[in-house]
């Protein structure tokens, strides 16, 4: 067997593949965060909790209403998006003029409340969500067995990230959004309903988190803690990519997934820390992040 740095190439390829899968989750979640931060200037700490709620919605749909994975893929993000509308309309909109810190504290509090409520009712061990039948089984890639479902996750995330980037950067709606955040008064004067746009953006951002939750449900346990496990890493991704940078969050998400995968081969104990080491280095060298613009 060929070896690279004392590690069989097969193992290395396998880890890179898995890194890509994890990176896909990071990318979707950090994308939502970046959109919200870029447009609303809110550091949405409730993102992880809403990702968890998305997974729980999928579980509830299946277990209480008999509605399967495909419908959940559509319904759960809509549900989470509606929660987003409520949060934005009743709470966040009052904080827009204040310092970032207030939004951060509010959403952090919301995250703790959501987690606590779900833990109270469903316990902390999590609940099983079975794979849809289509995705049972694995592809034999020669160097590794790759479950079909993970391939689906990669495809979905690339499509989603691409579509979001396209919508914000290339469409009229996206142009309104970008203009609305730059100079809300002026855009309003042109007859665009800016508050509605902002509510829509928040709902869309957390809807993405909900969608990631549904996609994660068959892989991980549907557990109240799943959000807090991942959110810190996702924040690191956003910071490394540059706060509010959409392309930055997508590229960084995938890249950090790969780096994490490699760390698991060379020094597994550090696999949860490596992201933060990179974050510290990036912040020292480029405080605005790799893709961010200094203001």
């Amino acid at each position, binding site marked *: 067997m060929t070896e690279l740095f004392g590690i*069989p190439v*097969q*193992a290395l390829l*396998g*880890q890179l593949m*898995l*890194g890509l*899968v*994890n990176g896909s989750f990071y990318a979707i979640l950090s994308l939502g965060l970046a959109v919200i931060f870029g447009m609303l200037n809110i550091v949405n700490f409730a993102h992880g909790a809403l990702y968890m709620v998305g997974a729980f919605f999928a579980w509830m749909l299946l277990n209480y209403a008999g509605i399967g994975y495909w419908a959940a893929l559509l319904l759960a993000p809509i549900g989470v998006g509606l929660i987003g509308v409520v949060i934005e309309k009743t709470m966040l909109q009052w904080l827009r003029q204040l310092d970032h810190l207030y939004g951060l504290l509010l959403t952090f509090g919301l995250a703790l409340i959501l987690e*606590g409520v779900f*833990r109270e009712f469903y*316990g*902390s*061990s*999590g*609940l*099983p969500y*079975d*794979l849809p039948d289509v995705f049972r*089984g*694995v592809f034999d890639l020669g160097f*590794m*067995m790759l*479950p079909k*479902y*993970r391939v689906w996750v990669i495809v979905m995330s690339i499509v989603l990230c691409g579509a979001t980037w396209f919508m914000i950067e290339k469409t009229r709606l996206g142009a309104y959004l970008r203009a609305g955040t730059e100079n809300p008064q002026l855009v309003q004067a042109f007859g665009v309903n800016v508050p509605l746009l902002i509510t829509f953006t928040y709902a869309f951002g957390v809807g993405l988190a909900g969608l990631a939750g549904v996609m994660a449900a068959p*892989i*991980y*346990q549907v*557990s109240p*803690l*799943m959000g807090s*496990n*991942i959110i810190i890493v996702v924040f690191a991704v956003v910071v490394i990519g540059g706060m509010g940078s959409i392309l930055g969050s997508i590229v960084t998400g995938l890249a950090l997934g790969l780096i994490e*995968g490699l760390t*698991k*081969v060379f020094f*597994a*104990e550090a*696999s*949860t820390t490596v992201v933060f080491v990179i974050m510290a280095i990036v912040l020292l060298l480029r405080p605005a992040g790799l893709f961010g613009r200094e203001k």
Partner: protein
Amino acid sequence: MKRHLKTSAIALATATLLGLCVTPLQAQQGKLSGDSVKIGVLTDMSGVYADYGGPGAVAAAKMAVQDFGGKMFGKPIEVVNADHQNKPDIAKNVTQQWFDRDGVDMTVENLNSAVALTVQGLAKEKNKISIITGAATARLTNEDCAPGNGIHYLMDTIALSNVVGKAIVKDGGDSWFFLTADYAFGHSLEKDTGEVVKATGGSVKGAVRHPLATTDFSSFLLQAQSSGAKVIGLANAGGDTVNSIKAAAEFGLTKKQNLAALLMLLTDVHALGLNTAQGLYLTEGWYWDLNDESRKWASRYEAVMKKKPNSNHASVYSATMHYLKAVQAAGTDDTAAVMKKMQETPINDMFAKNGQLRPDGRMVHDMYLFQVKKPSESKGAWDYYHLKGTIKGEEAFQSLANSRCPAFKK
């Protein structure tokens, strides 16, 4: 402080009132420090191990106090609890406060091996009693033993590896690779199981260590897969074990290799669902469906907690009850006197038959080998295990002669 004063005031008032109305017959003689018996349940109330111990452990301790009658020599028995969040430093602060200021006489549960080692050390220093149920590291009765203060009640890494390790190697699973949680407990379990495997004629091909509370195990499993070992030993617990097993099933690892969950409790099987967990071998010290007594207690617990108890919850009840009976028999809550009584009296309840507390702190009782049922064999929620064998306490646990505890080393 204010709260403490308030509780003391209430305790005092209750005691005075009781003092007025006890008849001579009830007023047994007994000396209690702080005029009450205070039990501290220290556990993970909200993290990865909250279903493993958590609120269920607190409920079990309260059930024991209630069944005992709620009073000791006419004085109140109190149960307090705290969430250590799986952090030894928090555990240390809480326990120190309990022992020094709040008059806690005994702490029970103390899951997470890193926490347990801290708490037992503190109990030794302050001459209090710590009863550890949820934590598994065998260091508690070996290198870090605290004879006279620390009790290790439910199981340990040696017993777990003895039972599952031997059974699997004898069944042909003679080469092992470990997936280990990177802290005291995981290291202990990996080491002890490795020794059993080698002693029974098997070999250990390697190990990979993952941080506590990892969500994605696929990378680690890939390494386990390429090791070519026949058996992948999961030296982790709770959510980590559940996620490892899920990922192993997803990656088709179980087709060529077998998984051995070294520490898995009923609550974990429930979380996984029988579809994924079926066929797994595991060791536990207790199961709710063992006999009439266990079934009866489990249904009482279920009435409170709305789910069946696991062996950890049952052992918290048993340990608390054994402690209370010992205080009663000794006529005092003095640590040495109570420990002596606890060692003299065999434990016979719904949890253990002829359980024996050894001088090194090890509670020796029978262990069970279970196999998880197929979905078609299960009669419903919580009906998960086939009993595959009962292993006598003396065989399952390390003998006192082999102990690495300095006080008993020969």
